[in-house]
């Protein structure tokens, strides 16, 4: 039997207007790589705060660090370099792409489409940073650009939330709830965000309890997250799962599952959810023979008890055979 295809390389898009905190976030990511090897594409090398002791090699468009991370410049060849990283025998753990301040992050998504189609990469999370302190003072046209970009993301970090006036912050949140209905918002200080948390995507070994207690140690922001996981020896109802996935997309930032469905055709499927984008693809049965699913989300959105109950309802239902369509 041929080797199963390996997981596509996860790609994180990091957008945000000038001064929103993208570079701060990327610097922090490199500092907390903690053994993971990240590749970071940035517009401006100069702004990245690289510890000189870590630098291994430097070229015109690439700086390799001794901890295994690599910084690349986001130039015209970036799609080709990204494909090279994805094809390596020992690919990096994740790629972060900093979308330039004024550019529309959706244009970058377009560039990634072919690599996604070739299953080399998977767009994992579209993160958008927004300067909650300065937002109210921006010109109306800039506000609209920022709102449009935020609406096209999965998670919006309201950065400098500690400095913003509470009433303004609340007004901003209310506005985004309407304007960016598919994005989730999280208040943030100094662009702190434990992105590596979102890299734990192996459903076979859920490491955390589902009650939302700390997932890692060391950052106060990690308490903002909750993780939920479940195991089922029974096959799942496909139609029921569609409704469940819809619920999950409203509650979680990302989820992955290896699932067995009750209908006959390709019973084992791998499920991926990022933001509102969900996919199901046929896969080989896992050794354990059980369906497993894990999700991570913001603590105030993801209620493990709710998901437990909804998921239990799916298990052991009779096969329904129907395709999941609005009208068939």
């Amino acid at each position: 039997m041929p080797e199963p295809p390996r997981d596509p390389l996860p790609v994180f898009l990091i957008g945000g207007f000038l001064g929103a905190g993208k570079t701060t976030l990327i610097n922090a990511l490199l500092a907390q790589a903690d053994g993971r090897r990240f590749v970071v594409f940035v517009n401006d090398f100069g702004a990245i705060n690289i510890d000189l002791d870590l630098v291994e090699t430097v070229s015109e468009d690439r700086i390799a660090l001794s901890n295994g991370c690599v910084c690349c410049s986001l130039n015209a060849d970036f799609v080709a370099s990204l494909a090279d990283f994805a094809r390596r025998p020992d690919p990096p753990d994740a790629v972060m792409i900093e979308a330039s301040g004024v550019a529309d992050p959706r244009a970058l998504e377009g560039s990634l489409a072919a690599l996604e189609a070739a299953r080399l990469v998977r767009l994992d999370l579209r993160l958008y940073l927004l300067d909650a302190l300065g937002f109210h003072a921006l010109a109306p046209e800039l506000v609209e650009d920022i709102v449009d970009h935020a609406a096209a993301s999965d998670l919006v970090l309201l950065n400098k939330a500690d400095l913003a006036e509470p009433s303004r912050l609340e007004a901003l949140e209310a506005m985004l709830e309407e304007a960016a209905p598919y994005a989730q918002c999280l208040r943030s200080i100094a662009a702190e965000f434990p992105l590596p948390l979102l890299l734990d995507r192996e459903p076979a070994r859920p490491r955390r309890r589902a009650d939302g207690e700390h997932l890692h140690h060391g950052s106060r922001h990690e308490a903002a997250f909750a993780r939920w996981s479940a195991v089922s020896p029974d096959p799942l109802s496909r139609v029921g799962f569609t409704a469940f996935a819809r619920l999950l997309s409203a509650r979680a930032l990302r989820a992955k599952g290896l699932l067995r469905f009750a209908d006959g055709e390709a019973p084992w499927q791998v499920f991926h959810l990022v933001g509102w984008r969900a996919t199901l693809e046929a896969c080989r049965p896992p050794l354990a023979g059980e369906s497993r699913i894990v999700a991570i989300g913001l603590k105030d959105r993801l209620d493990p008890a709710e998901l437990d109950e909804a998921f239990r309802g799916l298990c052991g239902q009779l096969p329904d055979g129907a395709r999941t369509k609005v009208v068939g």
Partner: protein
Amino acid sequence: MSATLFTGGTIRTLEEAAPTAEAVGIEAGKIAAVGTLASVRGALPGAVEIDLAGATLLPGFIDAHSHPLWAAKTRGAPVVDIRAEVVPTYKAAIAKIRRRVTVAKPGEHLLFFGLDPQLHPDMENPSRDFLDGLAPDNPLGIQTSNCHALYMNSAGFEACGIGPETPTPEGSVIERDASGRPSGKILEAVTWTALETFYGAWGDQRLSQEFEALIRDFVRHGITTVTEHLYLPFYRAWYGNALARDLPLPRVAAYQQATTPGMAVERIVDPDDRLWMAGVKIHADGSPFLGNIWLTRPYLENPMTLERMNLKPGHTGGPNYPQAFFEAMLREYFEAGWQMSIHTQGDRTIDMVLDQVEMLLGERPRPDHRFRLEHCALMRADQIERARRLGVICSFFINHITHWGAPIEDALFGPERAAHYMPAGSAVEAGMRISLHADTPMTDPSALKLMQAAATRRAGDGRVLGAEERIDIATALKSVTLDAAYQIGMEELLGSLRPGKHADLVVLDRDPLATPAEELAEIAVRQTWLAGRKVYHA
């Protein structure tokens, strides 16, 4: 002008006799020689040689159905983009409109583009009264993404001069309340007339800038010939102005819009073939996304069709014009010798048009009429055969599949009709020379995206609509070059690399014929040449 020679890459001529060449030479705006490097060098001694460095040279792309000037009006600033890909829900769109109104100058005309009954999941039909509450003091209009409908507030109706006494023009719809007062929504040609009020209020400077941006967008995508499929008489000045300013205006095949019999069709001929009147366009029906198309079998019934689109159960729509009125128009312009280009989406509309073509040809045979059907969403297999027999040719709006594939299958027409929606494969199979189009402003210009859409029929959500209607990449390439040239009556001058044809070229970083269909849209345009001049390079 000195001669230029291209070599060192893949050169696809689109000429059957010699589909590839080692070199192409151009001189004085025309293709001068095609063949081996030695023969082209021999024909053009002293030519400046350009090394393609492995890139691919093709004839420039032709978009057989577009609206460049109208696109600049319709989507250029200060029109606010509320298409679902930018503003995901109706609620978010209304919030954006509200924010825009709060910073509007008194009396400023406000226009929003892209309300979408299929892609805005919570779509409602905003009433005039609702919009009055939103914007009491500014003329405000919201155009649907399919371009065929407009919602306005009272100030908008007033500015456009549409009141209770205004008669509804033949071929259009003005929705009214019980007293006859327009209630907010208008459809078809009256929409486009009303919008001119907004464009006019913003002045020529704005349009000039936006038109230039549109022109550059076409050439950046390697498109060297477009059509203006809703040509109105005063448009000519804008093209003349663009040429006078030396902008890289692609060649324009104009199709003048007819809404009644008896309209004077401008005769435009240009010795350099930059602008000409190619024919007459009539809308026989409307948009599948609004429901104003004519079908033999009804729409599906579900919340999208019944609530968001506001259709009645069993809806089969109708044609835009009463049949006799349409026939009078068709007869007049067809018999005057114009190429006809008829917007048809529903299969019953296509029956009506083919019946009339057959009748007219029966009365007076006309060889090589190249009667065009535009878009052809729900054309049936028997109609393709009939069209081929009558010499009628189809231009397919294939981007419907990529942009609206999921709702087309799930909510509008069901899997069986979706599998043959925009039946390009069947048409090619029947031996028809087809073209593909983006219908800009409805979707963005890119011939490579059209090719990918036709070769994959993959919708935005990943599903494939009707694998048997896919066409191979070589045919897709012909449909945006040589066969598109045929459809606009210019195959002797455009669409392939042959000595004597215009030197319109595109250089791509990959050869489309050696690229997987799923990656065609990612091919980069390196250079565009128009009339022998480089007008774009990456």
